[in-house]
């Protein structure tokens, strides 16, 4: 199949025609091709397909919340061409069998590349390293390992994990949460939790783990990725670590770039998430951290839940928010429209760098002749009102429900195949191997 994208602003710059043939970018310039399906893209921004370092696709085990199929459809609608699927499924993705299963489900679904994340420890139990080598060597070619949802809090185990994955050029993605300091934690600890009488999740519980881990990474010369950084103090520590030359990368979620703990005053569990929503000062520090490169990537931490897990009182509600179908709009709203980032920067934090962190060869590539056609067309002038009931994800737990947001994904090309056209899901790509 041939597609001709006409007059798209590549990374928000010069308008160009892009010819896609057999999954690759065949030509750039002033083009015409009588056989190609034409996509008019005047006024649209062309980005490399988005890569999410952090999603929860819930399969195997919680197919009522999400499946690899529905989660990857949501990803495609959000402009993604690759997602990492966290290991906290049932059974846990702590062996080659489960990661290959998730990888195969993704391949068969055909909406995005689904890259399983392997658990660091057996059963996320924090006791014994899982078979990291077997997962790295499997067909899923796992490179990112994480016990996400649970912190690898044992310092010795964390040290060993960081060292061990060097053999496979892997990376440990840490969910930084000191467990003793966050027992029973319900929300950010601060002025709002004091009023609401909720057990606090103090910033220091995140910052102390990040401080420890960057020092461990330095000591053993390993690569560390910090999941969902949420506090101003964390940004400072990571900034310090990078200045020191430590191989650390950091991620921020869209919701931490916009929402604050003031939302918890509604007691609506749609705002219950881990790490919790923080203060306005933290939101601004996170944005500044993205702007100056301290924070490398956007990770949605897409965490769909069935309605009963949120249609209840705060204390028993599940933690997590959906994010795949709103991420790019939140990035535009909080980082582009505030003048902090250009669209080229957006490409870097949503595609180029996350693909590098996850060692994804075909993703996050430059928009250039010969490169795989993983591409996203965004209409930055569009405005839309978030309605969780029209989303592809099974989760209805979007904290942005009812908000008007800028920017809409018009088309997504996954290895040259349009998974999204005219802003709606098209067809999956049929893998030919």
């Amino acid at each position, binding site marked *: 199949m041939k597609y001709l994208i006409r007059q798209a602003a590549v990374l928000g710059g010069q308008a160009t025609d892009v010819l896609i043939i057999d999954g690759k970018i065949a030509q750039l310039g002033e083009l015409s091709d009588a056989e190609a399906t034409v996509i008019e893209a005047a006024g649209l921004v062309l980005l490399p397909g988005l890569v999410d370092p952090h999603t929860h696709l819930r399969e195997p085990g919680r197919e009522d919340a999400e499946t690899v199929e529905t989660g990857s459809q949501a990803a495609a609608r959000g402009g993604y061409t690759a997602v990492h699927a966290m290991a906290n499924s049932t059974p846990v993705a702590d062996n080659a069998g489960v990661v290959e299963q998730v990888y195969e489900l993704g391949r068969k679904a055909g909406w995005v590349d689904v890259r399983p994340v392997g658990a660091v420890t057996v059963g996320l139990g924090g006791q014994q390293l899982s078979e990291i080598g077997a997962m790295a060597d499997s067909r899923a070619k796992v490179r990112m390992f994480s016990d996400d949802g649970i912190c690898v809090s044992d310092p010795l185990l964390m040290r060993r994990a960081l060292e061990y994955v060097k053999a496979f050029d892997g990376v440990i993605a840490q969910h930084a949460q000191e467990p003793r300091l966050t027992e029973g934690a319900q929300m950010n600890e601060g*002025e*709002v939790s*004091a009023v609401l009488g909720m057990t*606090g999740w103090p910033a220091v519980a995140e910052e102390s783990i990040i401080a420890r881990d960057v020092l461990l990474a330095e000591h053993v010369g390993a690569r560390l990725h910090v999941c969902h950084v949420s506090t101003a103090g964390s940004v400072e520590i990571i900034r310090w670590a990078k200045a020191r030359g430590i191989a650390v990368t950091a991620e921020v979620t869209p919701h931490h770039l916009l929402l604050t703990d003031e939302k918890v005053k*509604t*007691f*609506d569990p749609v705002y219950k998430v881990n790490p919790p929503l923080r203060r306005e000062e933290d939101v601004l520090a996170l944005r500044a951290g993205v702007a100056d490169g301290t924070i490398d990537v956007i990770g949605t931490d897409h965490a769909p839940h069935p309605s*009963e897990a949120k249609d*209840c*009182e705060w204390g028993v509600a599940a933690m997590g928010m959906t994010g795949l179908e709103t991420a790019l709009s939140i990035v535009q709203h909080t980082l582009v429209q505030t003048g902090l980032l250009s669209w080229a920067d957006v490409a870097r934090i949503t595609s180029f760098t996350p693909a590098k962190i996850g060692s994804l060869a075909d993703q996050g590539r430059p928009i250039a002749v010969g490169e795989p056609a993983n591409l996203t067309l965004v209409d930055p002038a569009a405005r839309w009102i978030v309605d969780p009931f029209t989303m592809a994800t099974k989760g209805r737990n979007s904290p942005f429900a009812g908000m008007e947001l800028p920017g809409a994904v018009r088309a997504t090309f996954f290895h040259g195949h349009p998974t999204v056209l005219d802003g709606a899901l098209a067809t999956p790509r049929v893998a030919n191997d």
Partner: protein
Amino acid sequence: MKHLLSTADLSREEAIAILDIAEEMRETGTRQVKKLPALRGRTVVNLFFEDSTRTRISFEAAAKRLSADVINFSAKGSSVSKGESLKDTAQTLLAIGADAVVIRHPDSGAPARLAATDWIGLPIVNAGDGTHEHPTQALLDAFTLRRQLALREGVSPLGRGLDGLKIAIVGDILHSRVARSNLWLLNTLGASVTMVAPPTLLPVGASAWPCKISYSLDAVIESGVDAVMMLRVQGERMRAAFFPNPREYSRYWGLDDTRLKALEAKGHDTLILHPGPMNRGLEISSAAADSPASMVLEQVTNGVAVRMASLYMLLSGDLI
């Protein structure tokens, strides 16, 4: 007034109106026939997810004196402890024919959630939620203070606030819904509040509260206060390292006999309040609990009147 969830929601006028109605209600409690026909035919459900016999019977007495029917629903040993959700439980009560729900729940915000959702659409009274609020306790405390001071001055309490009073709230502020509800209401009524506690039992973020904070009960007593509200302290808190042991807690933050004497020596006629149940010998000595300045039983009596006023305002509604 649609719900009674937090004292922070009450304006000065609303708070004084509730206290004034409670004065009328308290009068009826002294009559031979204690019942008023105000809520005849209405059903009040006491939905208690936590054991609290004291609060439940106070609400029950209040509803019955207004001639309402009362259904007590205790979550212990019921379908709730088998995993039924708050939503399903509440909707069951609606189907039974409840007109108002009085809810006690271990989770902060559960009553507010019940009020904010489309689950039942009934008036909700927060009878204590987690470590968040206990608005009727604060109202009965304010009522008790206002009434005592008016008696002392020989004037009517009606229409008055608590302007210029100095109140110390002492103890486990961190885990106290009573402290939070009292703070907002006392401020609304014009009193000034000092929170007194070990630093471990004050929430991070309390510095933004409209009150003074002190770590020294002796210094606060020395400064002269119109009332001290002693909060219940659970001895188990020492296991989570909030304080070394009950003895040390009592030595620094308990209203013991020495401090009672210091209070009396100030000649300030300081009133002593406690929401109950008391840990005698821990946060309050028996001499303090049983002293003429102690309002503990008066608080219980006034609790019924304040809860009558609250139910009356929510269910007949046309006063405010």
